[in-house]
């Protein structure tokens, strides 16, 4: 681990999409065991910020360090880094031609080179962890949105990552299915997983988050303990954002 105990470190990260300057100098250090919740208006760069951490978005400028290693260095094997960082997407992104169990097993066999037996065992273990042990043979099209998202979480967790990223994972779900996914995430936080969560769920931010970050215009404008920040917001834009979502 890093000398300063940090798991993730972003240094002056900028991202341009064509003419759009989406991230404008992000500096962020995340300690192991933290549950960092990122909120902000749409287009504020919060998802892009999250996706730079596992290099799904490559920063145009700046450095990203994971576990003490500079992963933005062109010589770093990004595939190796990504094994240790799980990510769950808004649109689930399960492989539709594979069953729930095969979704979880695929990377275990092809990336971690586990034997079929080991992969099977670990896949079932993770599916039971998210409460879907009996759905292993179902295809994504046969599962509800909430179940699909829990399979996606199991798929990411099966790699035994050091960090989990959640990109608006409840935004595509029907309201009655949100809770089962949030409960799964809460359980994960209670077990001590380091998490970075982009969400609109303020209740989750307050209850589970250990740190709240508000982004606007590609910058971090509010950063602190969730209960304090909610109680006593400093930034004007954050105040107005809160008045709209709470």
């Amino acid at each position, binding site marked *: 681990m890093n000398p300063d105990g940090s798991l993730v470190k972003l240094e002056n990260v900028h991202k341009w999409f064509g003419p759009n300057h989406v991230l404008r100098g992000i500096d962020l250090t995340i300690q192991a065991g933290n549950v960092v919740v990122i909120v902000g208006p749409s287009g504020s760069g919060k998802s892009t910020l999250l996706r730079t951490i596992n290099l799904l978005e490559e920063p145009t400028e700046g450095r990203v360090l994971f576990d003490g290693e500079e992963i933005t260095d062109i010589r770093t094997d990004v595939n190796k880094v990504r094994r240790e960082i799980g990510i769950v997407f808004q649109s689930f992104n399960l492989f539709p031609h594979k069953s729930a169990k095969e979704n979880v097993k695929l990377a275990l066999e092809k990336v971690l080179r586990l034997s079929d037996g080991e992969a099977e065992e670990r896949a079932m273990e993770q599916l039971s962890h998210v409460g879907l042990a009996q759905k292993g043979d179902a295809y994504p099209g*046969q599962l509800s949105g909430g179940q699909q998202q829990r399979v996606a979480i199991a798929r990411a967790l099966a790699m035994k990552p050091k960090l989990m990223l959640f990109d608006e994972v409840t935004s595509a779900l029907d309201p009655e299915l949100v809770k089962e996914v949030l409960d799964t995430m809460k359980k994960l936080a209670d077990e001590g997983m380091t998490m970075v969560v982009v969400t609109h769920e303020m209740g989750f931010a307050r209850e589970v988050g250990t740190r709240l970050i508000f982004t606007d215009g590609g910058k971090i404008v509010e950063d602190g303990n969730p209960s304090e920040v909610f109680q006593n917001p400093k930034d004007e834009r954050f105040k107005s954002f809160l008045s709209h979502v709470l």
Partner: protein
Amino acid sequence: MATAVAEPASRPDTRGPTAPLPLSLFAAGAAAIAIVILGTLGIQAYQVVNGGPVTPACEAEGIEARLLGAEGVCHIIEGIRSRAQTVVWLLGIVLGAGAAAGGWGLYKRMPSKRQREQCIAGAVLGVQAIALSALLLWFRSGEIAPFIRNFFNAEVLAGTIDGFLRGMLNTVKLAFAGEVGGIMIGLLLAVLAISQRRTVRAPALVYINFFRGTPLIWQLFFIYAIILFGFGIQIETFTAAVLVFSLNTGAYAAEVFRAGIQSIERGQVEAARSLGMTYTQAMRYAIVPQAVRRVIPPLMNEFVILIKDTALVIVLGLTAENYELYTFSREVYSEFSNGSAFVATAFGYLAITLPLIRIVNAVEHRLRSGLTGVVGAGG
């Protein structure tokens, strides 16, 4: 995610009652078209069974009794010129006109949907009967004797069944070999063509554009000449044709594969890559298995097109045992100075292509119903 909506057991029929007037308009239209088609076919069937020797009228137009198949040709001509045939076509026009006028004039005033649809159907069938009868009358006013003699001589065809079947087999062989080669070339080209790197992409795009942008007949001729004279390789025309068909189909298949791969949601690659898979692994385990299902219908369409394009090998000149359908009919023409085999050949092509087209439609329907994500998932 697409979830199949359960079809109700039976939809209630809400089109309302019928009535004698719209029903009879529909019946008139249907009768008109049926009389034209079945009457014409019936007269020809009658001629086949009951027709006599070559008539003086036929003799006068050069259908001499000593010619091979003259009797059959004369039967067809006499049937077309018979008074019964005139009655059939005129009846079709009169009945059709009645149905068309009545249906068109009344459909807006019909009180129920069923009655309106019956009026419209009667009018449409009536118009079709008029058009078909008029076209046939026009055709008959021309010089039908030489036309029938040249293209509808059954006895010329009778001795060529073996050649016809061999032609069908060789057509399928040529097209199938070309398609298989084309799929392999296309897969390779598609992988190159979707590369982020311009140096990798450029040659593939040049190839694809060249083979899509020049006529296949030119490619057959020119590439055969290059192999024969440029490289000095003695190559059989059949092999050369398979090669050119593969090269050509490869360009089209590459575009099909590229579209198929690019139609897979971006999130699929992201999910695979974020699990630590390499680009190649993501393609192989996540993207290509999904893309393959989507490209089956367009690839089969390419195959149907290729089956028809095999006719172009005529420019290379095949050896006798390799004659495909079109060359076969061309050879029959040379031998008998009679083009009846060209007509038979059309049916040969249809016998191959129609079942394939049906399969394509069925596969497309199945893909669109979204069942493939669940059924037959393997790999």
